[in-house]
């Protein structure tokens, strides 16, 4: 501060600034300083008071009556919102942080309530309330941080659904499940921004997987069904430039699925698939495929997953391996030809090679040979990668 003022004087004497400007700068610095001083004192004071209060409470927590405990946490919650308001008005600190603290205090109040009345924390009620409140915050202030809180709370709802176990899903579980889907779709539709689009999409996808636990039908194709069912969700995305990132989400999910199905099929012999379901999945793939072909071409690569059901009947998983291998290769070539970045296709390609290699070579080769061939394979892949990159950098169009 002092250094700056001397500098100002120096500039004024050198004739660079006139006296009026210097006065204005000094006045500005003065008020800014005065403005900053109170909050600092306030922070120090509040910290000490807070610490004293906390240690007092911690020492006496067990003997405080339930209602007083709950009241205390509620007071903390409300003061968080008051601080958020102050911080917004005076543009100091961060109002978002205070509101998130407020939501945490709300969570604390609910937990304290449930515990002091000896109720169990098992149901999804608390997660639901936090989820809805965080979404409320998000739609009022449109800040990504609230979306993160909502997503975390949403994930916690799943742990509460079906707490009685597989076949005993109650009416309440189903209500919770259906409501979650409705709310997630609404979140997806009304947000139209990242990261909310991704979060709500993931919640919907997990909801599809949750069906595993809710119904007693022992299918293994749920993940693919869910992925296909989520394709029409793209119709709800209004802005064209939001789509590529969502495409990536579908493709990554499909890629993970393909690898999981491949390795599970190769390692197990007993998991049954109904032929009718497999055929229906093919039909669904055709239906979804035609929608994708008409409107969302980059997603065509998820369509072959529809064949997994049929290919599952071949027990050595060779057909699935061929399908995944061919798709990985075509995807790589296609990306290369259209001049996209090759990192992701290559990672997937390598992952496919390594998966296949592990599944088929592990039990059939002796260990040293296994690692030797593995090393050669990695070298080969690296060489292809290097060659392709060189060709692109050389500027030769393919």
């Amino acid at each position, binding site marked *: 501060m002092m250094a700056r003022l001397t500098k100002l004087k120096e500039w004024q004497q050198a004739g660079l600034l006139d006296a009026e400007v210097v006065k204005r700068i000094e006045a500005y610095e003065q008020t800014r300083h005065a403005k900053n001083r109170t909050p600092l004192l306030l922070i120090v004071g509040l910290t000490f008071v807070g610490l004293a209060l906390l240690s007092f409470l911690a020492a006496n927590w*067990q003997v405080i009556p339930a*209602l007083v405990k*709950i009241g205390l946490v*509620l007071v903390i*919650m*409300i003061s968080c*919102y*008051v601080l*958020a*308001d102050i911080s*917004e008005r005076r543009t100091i600190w961060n109002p978002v942080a205070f*509101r998130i603290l*407020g*939501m945490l205090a*709300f969570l604390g*109040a*609910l*937990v304290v*309530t*449930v*515990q*002091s*009345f*000896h*109720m*169990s924390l*098992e*149901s999804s009620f608390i997660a639901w*309330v936090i989820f809805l*409140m965080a979404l*409320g*915050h998000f739609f*009022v202030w449109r800040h990504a941080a609230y979306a993160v809180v909502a997503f975390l709370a949403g994930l916690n709802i799943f742990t509460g659904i079906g*707490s*009685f*176990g597989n*076949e*005993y899903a*109650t*009416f309440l579980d189903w209500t919770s499940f259906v409501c979650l889907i409705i709310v997630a779709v609404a979140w997806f539709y009304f947000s139209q921004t990242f990261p909310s689009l991704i979060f709500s999409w993931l919640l919907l996808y997990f909801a599809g997987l949750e069906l595993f636990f809710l119904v007693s039908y022992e299918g293994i194709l749920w993940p693919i069904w869910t992925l296909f069912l989520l394709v029409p969700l793209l119709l709800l995305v209004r802005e064209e430039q939001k789509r590529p990132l969502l495409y990536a989400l579908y493709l990554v999910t499909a890629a993970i699925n393909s690898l999981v199905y491949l390795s599970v099929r190769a390692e197990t012999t007993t998991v049954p698939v109904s032929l009718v379901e497999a055929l229906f999945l093919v039909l669904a793939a055709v239906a979804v495929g035609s929608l994708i072909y008409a409107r969302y071409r980059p997603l065509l690569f998820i369509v072959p997953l529809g064949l997994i059901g049929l290919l599952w009947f071949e027990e050595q998983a060779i057909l699935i391996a061929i399908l995944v291998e061919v798709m990985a290769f075509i995807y790589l070539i296609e990306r290369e030809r259209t001049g996209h970045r090759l990192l992701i296709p290559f990672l997937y390609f390598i992952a496919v090679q390594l998966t296949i290699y592990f599944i088929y070579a592990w039990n059939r080769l002796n260990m040293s040979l296994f690692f030797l061939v593995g090393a050669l394979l990695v070298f080969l892949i690296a060489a292809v990668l290097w060659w392709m990159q060189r060709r692109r950098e050389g500027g030769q169009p393919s």
Partner: protein
Amino acid sequence: MKKYGFAVIQTLIVLLVVLSFYAISWFGESYRFRAEPFDPFDPIYGEYVMLQYPDLKPDASVKQGLVYVTFATGKDGYARIDQISNKRFFGSVAGEYYDEYVTIPQLTQYYVEQGAGKGYEDAKKLEVKADVSPWGTVRATDLAVRSESK
């Protein structure tokens, strides 16, 4: 309003939850359950005792899994199963029939004062006072060491 709306709504929600817990006691019946601690547990969030209820043993007609029960007080002053079914019926409490006993989720864990859990676990013979509302919710109100000599 926009600024404090959430503070108000969230406060109201907590109050509603508190009210709903009290309502169980206001409108419900009180029972005493024989309880036994099991599976000593050392959780991060406060200390609690896990409980099972030897009196809540259904007859053979009931299938394992999700069950619905109502209670009645027996001659010895402790609660026993009045009606039990695998189907929901009016005024019933949802529970799970697993292994030998019926467990009611709201009665399986009881928060106790820090350091007191071990004492309850060693005492073995416990009793729980709980209120059961007509709409099928349960609220445990007290945990004590059972004084009978049985």
